């Protein structure tokens, strides 16, 4: 039999082309959808979420401002919100980078490098568990994410239940001012997760009408709003007892403020108030204990 070169029929060609296309698409599909194994999280909140979902072993880099849990110290730092180190990020060969939505330059650069990203932006309290679920789905641990989010929701619901029906004191939540004086007071306005947490914990935010995350308050405004409770937040190292006392005494300059008169100015120290991650449950409980000590007896 003479050797006849095998003829490729048009139909076979089509099938072949479809196969190649299928393989290509399949691999592409697999590449984008495979569970990420090398994750960089630039934001403390999402880093804490990864730990809470039990996937800390997939982290290969964290942001400069990550402090919690203590294990984050063993990861390479890749910069912060304003100064991400792109070279460092690329050199760690991540297959997923969690970025903040406003990091537009970084997002463009990583996009050009073909890196997969999870874009995140925190706003109100409901966004936190929602982000957790979305992140869990993205990295293929939706069951764990669901469980972690459920734990947070349950504990928040517990706080809400405890303070239910109690009188809600008019509360001012301050997250910064000049030490030793009442100057440059930065307070939480009627928007954002701190405001939501305060309301959940049974406080009535005196700045509810100002739809901003932060409001710079004058002394006149403090006097005019007349809060019944003032909660001041402080981050970083724990101050000494006498430091706390002297900071609280500063408020005596405004004796007509009900919170000052009834000694309801509280200084809470801890960074769970700045990180909108899983530790918001602790923040909510601490708010509630200050606002409604009777609910925790």
């Amino acid at each position, binding site marked *: 039999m003479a050797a006849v070169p095998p003829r490729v029929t048009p139909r076979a060609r089509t099938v072949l082309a479809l196969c190649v296309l299928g393989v290509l698409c399949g691999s592409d599909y697999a590449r984008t959808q495979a569970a990420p194994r090398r994750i960089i999280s630039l934001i403390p909140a999402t880093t804490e979420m990864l730990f809470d979902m039990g996937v800390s072993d997939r982290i290969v880099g964290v942001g400069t401002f990550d402090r919690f849990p203590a294990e984050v110290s063993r990861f390479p730092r890749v910069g912060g919100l304003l100064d991400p180190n792109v070279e460092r990020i690329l050199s760690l060969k991540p297959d997923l980078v969690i970025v903040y939505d406003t990091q537009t330059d970084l997002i463009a650069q990583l996009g050009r490098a073909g890196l997969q990203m999870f874009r995140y932006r925190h706003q109100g309290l409901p966004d936190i568990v929602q982000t957790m679920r979305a992140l869990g789905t993205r990295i293929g641990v939706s069951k764990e994410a669901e469980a972690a989010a459920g734990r947070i929701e349950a504990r928040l619901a517990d706080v809400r239940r405890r303070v239910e029906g109690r009188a809600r004191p008019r509360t001012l939540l301050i997250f910064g001012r000049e030490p030793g004086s009442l100057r440059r007071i930065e307070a939480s306005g009627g928007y954002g997760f701190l405001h939501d947490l305060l309301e959940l914990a049974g406080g009535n935010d005196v700045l509810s009408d100002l739809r901003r995350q932060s409001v710079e308050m004058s002394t006149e405004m403090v006097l005019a709003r007349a809060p019944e409770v003032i909660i001041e937040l402080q981050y970083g190292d724990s101050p000494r007892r006498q430091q706390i006392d002297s900071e609280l005494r500063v408020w005596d300059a405004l004796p*007509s403020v009900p919170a000052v008169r009834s000694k309801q100015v509280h200084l809470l120290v801890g960074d769970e108030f700045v990180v909108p991650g899983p530790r918001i449950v602790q923040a909510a409980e601490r708010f509630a204990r200050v606002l409604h000590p009777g609910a925790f007896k």
Partner: protein
Amino acid sequence: MPGRPDVRRRLAVSLAAFGTLTLLAILLAPLVGSTPIRLARVFDRSIPFADNVDAQIFFVARLPRVLAAALVGAALALAGVVFQALLRNPLASPDTLGVSAGAALGAVLAITFNADFTLLGVTAVPLASFAGSIGALIIVYGLSAARRRGTSTLVLLLAGVTLTALLSAISAFVRYLADFTETLRTVRWLMGSLDVGAFTPIAVAAVPMGIAITGFAMLPRILDLISMGAESAAARGVDVTRAERVALVSASLATGSAVALAGPIGFVGIVVPHLVRLLVGADHRVVLPASALFGASFLIGCDLVARIVFAPTEVPVGVVTALIGGPFFLWLLFRHA
């Protein structure tokens, strides 16, 4: 002496006019604000102060603020007049020779390293800021001493600009190292604020300002001569070196204490002197007191606008000084041109 009665008359007229303006500003500004208060209640002695919200708004929130604005506005305007004459440059301002940048560096360091101490009722940030301005003054003073070997005003000016850039770079570096909340506090500090909330910081700041004003009182005739040129001043028997030192130290002290008290507030120090010169002429015997009074009332007015325009929240006062002062100054410039 020729021209003397004329100067006396102009001095009397401008002191009366600007004095009335300042007095009215000081009396009326505390009555206005984001919260309505009743004056009868403010001065009602039958209500204990601790319970009297109106009195506290008046005496704790507003009056210190108005007085701080008066003091800071006067100090910055005076410093601007003196620097412009001393450097023979219409673009000179209290910020030109690096004193403000020194004050800013001090404040940024205190904020970033969370300094928490109090001296004479004044807290760490204003203290560090004043110390920073003194540090910058010492450097500038050293430079001006080196100036005796025939270096020109222009060299001093360039040195000041360089020092400002250098100190600002160090500030920027410290800010870069700072954590997030500290960065926010620094940004807010750099916007300036007159809400001092007590009389003590004002009283303390008034001491270096008083020294500065004593220095200014020695200067008017000499500044007139210097601003025409150091040589002609020397020819008329002025000890130029000594006069320049008094001017430099006084203007720097005034700037340093103003920035320490309120943070950097732009525009007052550069524009008020020009405005006043357009209105009363160039004689420093009139320009100096008139600038002090007009600077005071201008800043009180700007702070009032800052307090009420977006009430209950406020606009940084430095934004208002530029937004109101800028167009007004342009109008004056072109009306005269």
